[in-house]
């Protein structure tokens, strides 16, 4: 058991992966008003694509990463077009069930193609462990922190500065009004899914580099935890997702180290329940007013 600082840094590493996934949830929720349950499984797909491109096709790391991210982005758009778009006017329960179905579909396809045995995967990140005084930080954690930082800054700039970003904000504010202003709503929604899925792919790559094993259910738990992070930060809010993700990672790593590793999941979900009861809109979320 390392020092508290070490646990904090580890938590920060896992937390920033959660934050990346949570960003996808939050953006999709902001725009499409739905929980994309299949989002967690995009991580798994990303991990498998990376595995195939690196070990089967023997591609260089950069190319493999690029292919993985593109593949997941296209997958995200496809899922939206096939499963969610026809249900845009349907009740939320129907959309939620479809999303759960999609998540199951991705998992069972992976199960059929790669079977249930976990595949060992050697990390593609080759960075030495860094020692700072008494605390050691593994190379993977360091790279994870840097990559997530870059992704978040880029995303924030994209959303606040570019035209496409403001289109996204407009659609999430009011779909009909955005359409009247000449924004292509369908394209904006597709773009959101693409960005969210690309971020999930990055998270997937970082995740397998950390845990070095791939299985079809790999995405389920981080997916749900990232969702908890998104809710914790206030769903629909981009900075909220980042804070929520990091916070959750730290809580998880601290409780794993000092309370009980078996109860970690219970604690993480307990946090979710608590947050929803005390402040249902999350830390940074806006209160929704019920209209008749």
């Amino acid at each position, binding site marked *: 058991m390392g020092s508290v600082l070490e646990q904090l840094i580890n938590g920060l590493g896992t937390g920033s992966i959660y934050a990346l996934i949570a960003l996808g949830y939050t953006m999709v929720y902001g725009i499409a*008003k*739905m*929980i994309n349950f299949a989002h967690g499984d995009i991580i798994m797909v990303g991990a498998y694509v990376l595995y195939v491109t690196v070990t089967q096709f023997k591609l260089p790391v950069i190319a493999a990463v690029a292919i993985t991210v593109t593949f997941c982005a296209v997958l995200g758009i496809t899922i939206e077009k096939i*499963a969610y778009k*026809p*249900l845009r*006017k*349907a*009740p*939320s*329960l*129907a*959309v*939620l*069930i*479809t999303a*759960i*179905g*999609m998540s*199951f*579909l991705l*998992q*069972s*396809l992976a*199960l*059929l193609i790669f079977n249930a045995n976990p595949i060992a995967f050697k990390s593609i990140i080759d960075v030495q462990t860094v020692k700072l005084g008494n605390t050691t930080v593994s190379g993977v954690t360091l790279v994870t922190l840097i990559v997530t930082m870059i992704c978040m800054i880029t995303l924030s700039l994209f959303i606040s500065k570019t035209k496409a970003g403001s289109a996204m904000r407009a659609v999430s504010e009011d*779909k009909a009004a955005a359409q009247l202003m000449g924004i292509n709503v369908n394209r904006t929604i597709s773009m959101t899914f693409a960005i969210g899925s690309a971020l999930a792919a990055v998270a997937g790559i970082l995740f397998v580099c950390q845990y070095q094993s791939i299985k079809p259910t790999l995405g*389920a738990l981080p997916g*749900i935890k990232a*969702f*908890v992070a998104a*809710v914790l930060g206030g769903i629909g809010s981009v900075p909220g997702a980042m804070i929520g993700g990091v916070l959750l990672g730290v809580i998880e790593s601290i409780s794993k180290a000092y309370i*009980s590793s*078996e*109860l*970690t*999941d*219970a604690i993480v*979900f*307990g946090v*979710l*329940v608590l947050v*929803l*009861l005390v402040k*249902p809109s999350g830390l940074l979320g806006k209160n*929704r007013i*019920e209209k*008749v």
Partner: protein
Amino acid sequence: MQNIVKEKKNNSFTKKNLLITAGIILGFLVVMYLAEGNLLNRQYKSLIVPIGIYIILAVSLNLTTGFLGELSLGHAGFMAIGAYTGALITLNLNMPEAVEFIIALIVGGFIAAIFGVLIGVPVLRLKGDYLAIVTLAFNEIIRSIINFLGITGGAMGLSKIPRYTNYIWVYILVVLTIVIITNLVNSRHGRAISAIRDNYVAAESIGLKVSKYKVMAFVIAAFFAGIAGVLYGHNLSVLKPADFDYNKSIEILVIVVLGGMGSVRGSVIAAAVLTILPEVLRAADDFRMLLYAVVLIAMMLFNSSGIRTKLEESGKLPKLPKLTRNRAK
């Protein structure tokens, strides 16, 4: 208006009930014949009990998902509570089989129902997506606590649970579940529950206690899930926390969705179909999960397409209650 409704009910009371009683007895004879006769081989006979258990689970989940209109992803959690409570009772009591089992069933159901209250009350503040996630979270919390506790055997689980569950018990409990849930749904309380699903704000504004009915639906569903859990444990004779994960909840949800949300009959048929189908398609066992996924997606796309409405209007499909759009705009 109320008088007319009451009168109508009284008229249909005797004839309908006689028919139902006859149907129940006939159904029992059929099940007995299937279980004891030579019509089925052992593989299919062993499916009778699981079908019954899934019917109880699906019908009770239908109360929350179909009639109340709230997605609950924690049904396997209630089932786990019932299963473990029941198993611990029969493992530790030294009483005659029937007495022990009845106590296990009742206590298992009640403990699950108490957890239903514990979960139902805080969950009241939420609805829709959030509520679904919290129920999922509770399922995971229950599972990891069972995994952690010593009395439940941790990850190894419990074994050597007496195999008390047989088709007679299952049949009686399936009938009880269906009768109670159908009666509830058709009663004043059931109409209130459906009204909350159809229009939450309107239901509240005519004075329905939304919270009360929500908790009621949750608790009753949890009670029956607990009973199904007791049956499940005493059928398999081993219990592991991993049996009651999120996938189990989804499995039950698939049954409810395929049968039609808000249709008890549909749940019964779908439970039978989805339990038998993987056995028939043994070779396609790997495709089972895929099948579930496709069923979920296809049913949702079908329900919201125009085809469903047309078929319902021409009388080829029974009409299901329409879920309201409660998505934030």
